[in-house]
């Protein structure tokens, strides 16, 4: 926080709002991703399996739990609760997703991302979609990383429950 204090007045004014923007962006995407997956648990399991990266023993548990992890993570970021912890989790998940998509791409699998529901099935021109999916996740990863670095921002519950 010392950098903020030595920064000129103009920088101080907008800097905290970057955090608000990042929270709403990343949090909003996680909420959407979670909500869209919850209606069809069987499909989530197939989507996870389609990447052929994980042993069958953990595939159903991950398919069933991931939508709720995403939803809660998104809600916490939007309301600003434990922003740093949640931003770290967000980074870890996004890195895992980028690795999954990149490896599916590298192995020539033609699968749906399953990022926002769906998945477990074929995707016409999957190879054309992979780079965009990776770029999107990378952007979200950068936003999450910002929140790990600067977790404090206005309009956050953290300011109430964990005052500095």
């Amino acid at each position, binding site marked *: 926080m010392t950098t903020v204090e030595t920064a000129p007045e103009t920088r101080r004014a907008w800097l905290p709002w970057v955090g608000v923007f990042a929270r709403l962006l990343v949090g909003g995407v996680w909420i959407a991703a979670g909500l869209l997956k919850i209606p069809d648990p069987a499909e989530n*399991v*197939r989507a996870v399996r389609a990447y*052929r990266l994980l042993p069958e023993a953990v595939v159903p548990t991950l398919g069933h739990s991931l939508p709720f992890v995403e939803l809660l993570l998104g809600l916490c970021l939007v309301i600003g609760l434990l922003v740093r912890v949640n931003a770290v989790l967000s980074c870890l998940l996004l890195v895992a997703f980028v690795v999954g998509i990149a490896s599916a791409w590298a192995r020539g*699998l033609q699968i749906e991302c399953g990022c926002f529901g769906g998945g477990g099935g074929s995707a016409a021109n999957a190879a054309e979609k992979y780079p965009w999916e990776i770029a999107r996740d990378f952007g979200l990863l950068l936003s999450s990383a910002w929140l790990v670095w600067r977790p404090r921002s206005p309009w956050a519950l953290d300011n109430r429950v*964990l005052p500095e």
Partner: protein
Amino acid sequence: MTKKQSRATKQAHAQRAAERAAAIRAESERKERRRRTIVVTAVVIGVLTLVVAIATIVQSGRDTTGESATPPAGVVDTYGLPRGSDGAPVTVEIYEDFMCPFCGDLEAAATDMLVGYVDAGDVQVQYKMLSFLDRASDGSDYSTRAMNAVGVVLDTAGPEAAVRLHDLLYENQPAEGTPGLDDDQLVALAVEAGADEEQVRGPIEDRAFEVWVKNATDQANQDGATSTPYVVVNDEPLDQVPTEQLVADLEAAIEAAKAE
């Protein structure tokens, strides 16, 4: 002079004492805040973990995949609709969804060729149907309803009628994203295929084989059919290529398997 000095010294002493007190207070406040941060963080993480655990249990309860289901009488390998005799030397497994347009293309392009091999006794085709495109029928779960109807006809009227219904469903394939044929139309096609309306209407409308359909979809996914059509000749999967090439590859693979 000395008085002034001593006053100044006193003041300095008092100030230092106050600073020390303030420092101690600040230190204890810092510790208190730190303790609070740890407690709040731990509680919140605990609650979130609990919520995720409960939600996961609820979700796996809602996921009926893997529940035991009686398959229709007459299936091969639990989920296969057979075309041709069990003794045929070459097995062609075709994983397909009734809503999948490329499956429809394959059916239109390959069925005559396959029927030739089937009639010669060289090939048994096993249609491994799945329902992963349920979401592409505007909420009507067309893939599940169509596959269930085939299961019902297989169960009540045997494989030949079920294969006829399978072919009819591809000849009348709805466009992806539309609700597809309704239950009455499915019953009509089932009757056209040779089933008895009284026997099939109830189980078609009630989706009697819904869990079997769900398990078949999960098994297909485990078998590697993450996109359809997925064709396997004597346990060797074919590359997923455009339809014309796929039909040529399929014929070549059958010839190769026959020669073995």
